[in-house]
């Protein structure tokens, strides 16, 4: 990508004033999450959420999903916070807000498919982090959830170009980022980065969004980028991809990302990747159900006709 393309993307993203109604709670919440400290006040989050009944309702529905392991569906935001902990609730809220931020009419790809992948990747990142003692699970979740926001930007800012890329990816059964590069000359990594910078996301998360398909370009947060890269690949191989067959073989343990993550977290070596994969399959139905409940039912098509 040339510098001029980068400037063009940044300008066009900066000018998305037509950005559909982002829930009021969204940006303040991002700021709170960015702090990543325990002193974020419970009341502050509850207050922010109470501004928006839709978000509060969705948050309760999400928290009640089997994915979050509560025995009983929670009845209030405060109740959710008490059972799941503040940080997890923040990530749930973020999930809901993102769902609201982008209306269906601008989607080139099926939003349900997009959310399944994003949520799936978030869950896998957190599941990986449970195996790696030193990784912050909620941060991992957030990185996974946000890694592909570039696709949302593509839908909003470059819908025609992105439709061509999507069509090519489906037709040739190749990874979407390859199709983007071949047809648009840049990928959702670059467009996602522009939005992440506009939203002033944490540096690590920006790195993940920008480089999860080109890990060698990441300067600052390689283990995070590696974690999301591997989780993304695994999701795409286990029915949580972009709704079309990707014609390739993935050798996760031979991927440079595996070595990067292993160097930082030795316990990765002890992970039984086959069982991990089978366990991920268990969550797929729950993810489908959750996406249908929160973001609406999937459309009939997976690929543009």
């Amino acid at each position, binding site marked *: 990508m040339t510098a001029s393309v980068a400037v063009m993307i940044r300008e066009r993203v900066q000018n998305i004033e037509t950005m559909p109604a982002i829930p009021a709670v969204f940006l303040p919440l991002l700021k709170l999450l960015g702090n990543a400290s325990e002193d974020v006040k419970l009341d502050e989050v509850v207050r922010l959420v109470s501004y928006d009944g839709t978000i509060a309702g969705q948050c309760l529905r999400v928290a009640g999903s*089997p994915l979050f392991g509560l025995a009983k569906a929670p009845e209030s935001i405060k109740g959710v916070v008490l059972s799941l902990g503040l940080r997890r609730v923040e990530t749930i809220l973020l999930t809901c807000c993102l769902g609201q931020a982008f209306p269906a009419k601008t989607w080139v790809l099926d939003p349900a498919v997009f959310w399944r992948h994003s949520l799936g990747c978030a869950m896998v990142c957190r599941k990986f982090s449970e195996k790696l003692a030193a990784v912050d699970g909620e941060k991992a979740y957030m990185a996974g959830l946000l890694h592909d926001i570039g696709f949302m930007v593509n839908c909003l800012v470059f819908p025609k170009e992105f439709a061509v890329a999507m069509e090519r990816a489906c037709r040739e*059964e190749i990874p979407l980022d390859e199709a983007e590069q071949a047809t648009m000359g840049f990928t959702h990594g670059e467009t996602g980065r522009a939005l992440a910078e506009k939203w002033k996301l944490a540096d690590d998360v920006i790195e993940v969004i920008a480089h999860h398909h080109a890990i060698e370009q990441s300067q600052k947060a390689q283990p995070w980028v590696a974690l999301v890269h591997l989780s993304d*690949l*695994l999701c*795409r*191989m*286990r*029915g949580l*991809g972009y709704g079309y*067959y*990707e*014609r*390739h*073989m*993935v*050798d*996760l*343990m*031979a991927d440079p990302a595996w070595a990067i993550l292993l160097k930082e977290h030795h316990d990765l070596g002890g992970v*039984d*990747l*086959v*069982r991990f*994969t*089978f*366990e991920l*399959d*268990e969550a797929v*139905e*729950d993810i489908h159900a959750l996406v249908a409940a929160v973001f609406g039912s999937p459309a009939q098509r997976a690929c543009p006709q």
Partner: protein
Amino acid sequence: MMTITQSATLPHAPTKSVEAVDPVYRQIRDLVYKVSGIYKAEEKLYLLADGCARRMKQLGSRTPREYWDQLTAQPGRDGELRHLLNEITIGETCLFRSQPQLDALRKVILPEIVAERTKQITKRLRIWSAGCSTGEESYTLAMNMLEESERLLKGWTVEIVATDLNDRSVETAKAGIYGDYALRSTTEYFKRKYFSTVDEKKLQVRPEVKKLVTFSRLNLQDDSKMLFMKGMDLIFCCNVLIYFDGVSKSKVINHFFTNLNFGGYFFLGTSESLMKLNEQFHLVHFPGTIAYWKPSLKSGKL
């Protein structure tokens, strides 16, 4: 999410329900995985519970907990585990059992093999269906290869070597006659193209499919015979290794590794794992399925 309830009185086939699963079934699931490499996912736990229920009826055990004791206490635990493994894998034999494996084969692996061997004069593909039972997998592979015979595999010789320990299975396999249950995943397209009608309920694979497959009896633990199975591009061995103890299993897997060509693939059953019994194979993912890869020489990953 599907979970299981279990009557506290008499054993019976558990039903799918939203109530909490008896935690004993998760313990049994973990034991089965540790010993055999078979993993029953949460939503398939009712299948495991079904299998347990049938065994419990046989044994007269009243609760899952009591059955757990029989599975874990000497004497007889190894025998009981075999019975249970039989129960939980019994329904898995059918034609077209795993579409993701077939997709990986036709969409990813074959194009790769064909591209790699464009310069070879003799174009030959060898596939081994190890533990072929009554031939369902072997014929499925044969039909899929025939589908490619006018495209990717034009000019290629395909040979499917199918072996099983059991003489009777081998004889049944040779006949190639299947009923509704074995054909439940076979599409009308394949039925019409590759089968002839025996009677109302049975179909038989056509001679052109049979021609691709050679059935024979083989004991995978017979080291001297295993040495003669060289030059395979693909090996399928579904739900067979689960019955072997750790030492025999590693030995058989080593034979498979040796018998595979560089760049070849080894497939297990869909919920089966090689665990960590072989460090040379690379665990690889294709959409919806996993396999074990013997890296090609030029990949430099050996």
